[in-house]
């Protein structure tokens, strides 16, 4: 059998989405960001929305999200993506407008914009990469950092007396009248990736059908910030993060 015999449509197992280009990967090994990028590319392609999509990227490790997906992008100031998206969607009603934000970006500096965009029921999707740390700036404490977790600005572990409590902003979002679909997923194994993909797809469909605001949190790893190998990071996430950030659909007004 030659190579050409093998490269046949019926043998296709996995394919790079066409919207994804060959940019050299800037994410660390084991980082969840890359997997989520690919899911987004696949879904936009499947929904045939490349000419109808405006992506808003954050300040955080995903600041360069625009390098990987060949769609129109606007890079927002730190935390402001939901406000940027609000205007885009209101001014271009037939577009898919989504933001892609880290936990520092979304739950800390941009908490106000996040809550209000969700509460107004903006017809957008917010993809929320929660790795419980500030990855880009070198591993500082995030609002989502778990109690006891060590970061460079809580090197002895997060304690409520000094640092307050971890903020579960996705749970909070379920109580906002404007949200239609709120889901928490992860991408640490194939089954989880599949579930995450269908959650993002559902959110995108809602956005296109003008149904509420949609929030999909992806509980993520930051192997570098957590100072762990990719495998250790996945294990640590399963053991520690999923208890506080429980996976599953948290709100779906269509059900």
């Amino acid at each position: 059998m030659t190579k050409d015999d093998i490269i046949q449509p019926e043998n296709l197992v996995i394919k790079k989405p066409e919207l994804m280009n060959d940019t050299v990967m800037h994410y660390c090994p084991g980082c969840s960001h890359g997997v989520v990028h690919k899911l987004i590319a696949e879904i936009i392609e499947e929904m045939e929305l490349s000419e109808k999509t405006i992506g808003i990227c954050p300040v955080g490790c995903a600041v360069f999200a625009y390098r990987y997906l060949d769609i129109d992008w606007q890079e927002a100031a730190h935390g402001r993506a939901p406000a940027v998206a609000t205007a885009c969607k209101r001014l271009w009603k037939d577009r898919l407008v989504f933001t892609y934000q880290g936990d520092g970006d979304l739950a800390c500096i941009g908490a106000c914009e996040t809550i209000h965009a969700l509460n107004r029921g903006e017809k957008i999707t917010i993809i929320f990469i929660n790795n419980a740390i500030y990855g880009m700036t070198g591993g500082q404490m995030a609002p989502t950092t778990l109690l006891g977790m060590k970061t460079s600005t809580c090197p002895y572990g997060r304690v409520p007396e000094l640092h307050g409590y971890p903020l579960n902003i996705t749970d909070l979002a379920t109580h906002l009248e404007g949200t239609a679909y709120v889901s928490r997923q992860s991408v640490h194994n194939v089954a989880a990736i599949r579930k995450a993909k269908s959650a993002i797809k559902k959110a995108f469909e809602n956005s296109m059908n003008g149904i509420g605001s949609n929030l999909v949190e992806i509980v993520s790893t930051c192997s570098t910030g957590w100072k762990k190998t990719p495998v250790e990071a996945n294990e640590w996430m399963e053991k520690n993060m999923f208890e506080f950030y429980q996976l599953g659909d948290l709100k779906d007004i269509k059900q």
Partner: protein
Amino acid sequence: MENNRECFLMKGNEAIAHAAVRCGCDGYFGYPITPQSEVLETLSQLKPWETTGMVVLQAESEVAAINMLYGGGASGKRVMTSSSSPGVALMQEGISYMAAVEIPAVIVNVQRGGPGLGTIQPGQADYLQATVGGGNGDYNTIVLAPASVQDMADYVDIAFQLAFKYRNPTFILSDGVIGQMMEQVYLPPFKPRRTEEEIGTECPWAANGYHLTQRKPNIFSSLEMDPKTMEQRNTRLQQKYALMSKNEQRATTFLCDDAEYLYVAFGSVSRCAEEAVVVLRNRGHKVGLLRPISLWPFPKDCLNKILPTVKEILVCEMNAGQMINDVKLSINCQRPVYHYGRTGGVVPTPDELIEAMIALIKQ
């Protein structure tokens, strides 16, 4: 009707709102603050979303409002906001980001006295903030200063045209007097909003997905990791600002042909100065007024043109001395330049300006 324009009696803030709807604005995003809340209130009453399709949204903060302009402007739409001094201070982050990636939008500042929460009475103390950038980094925005309710109505469309011509945020730097006072105003005729195809043609740079498969993705990002490339971007921006500075100086002069004593004043203060000039001329003094319309670029060509007859200059502003620096720089300090300023919301009267000028003449 004058030249097909309808005449009304209204406040400057209301004129801004009417002009926005009439000049084909696609979206207004704002947060209430005195003395400009009538802009959002008037728009809410006008309900343009039912007529022209213009979007009107009360944002959760000025920070959000300016970032809504970022999104709307980057997608090729004509978007604007209005606020007053403390609110505009909050917008500076967004304005810097917009200047960095060349996003057109119109920002109206109906200034009040500061610093801090200051006062809800009129002020002009945001002159420096508006004319030297305001946010982080090297950048400039065109700044237009209206002096009447008519100007408020007329400058909205001009500001949009400049914003799109140079792909740059553009300021209308008004003040509480102009925003709140009522005057006769001719509103511009209705101009339709652009269609999607028209936006596609006018703004091929916009990030809105339009015809994406036939072009490269449009990406707005001010981040650049390579200093050399970043410097090149800055150099290109500076070249644009140089062009704007050359082409977009605007000013009006009043009795300047033989003026030996010159007032320089903008916005509402220029109205007082105009009256002072009339009074002083009647008393036999050769006094004139230069009213900069564009504060950036400062109309230095115009000032230098009238300079030969001028002996002394009196800059009058509702601040502690901000535009005076531009006046001195523009003429290379070739004449003595004095300042008369009121702050904290105190509006100078024509009598005060007359007295200040008489003191100069008698000196």
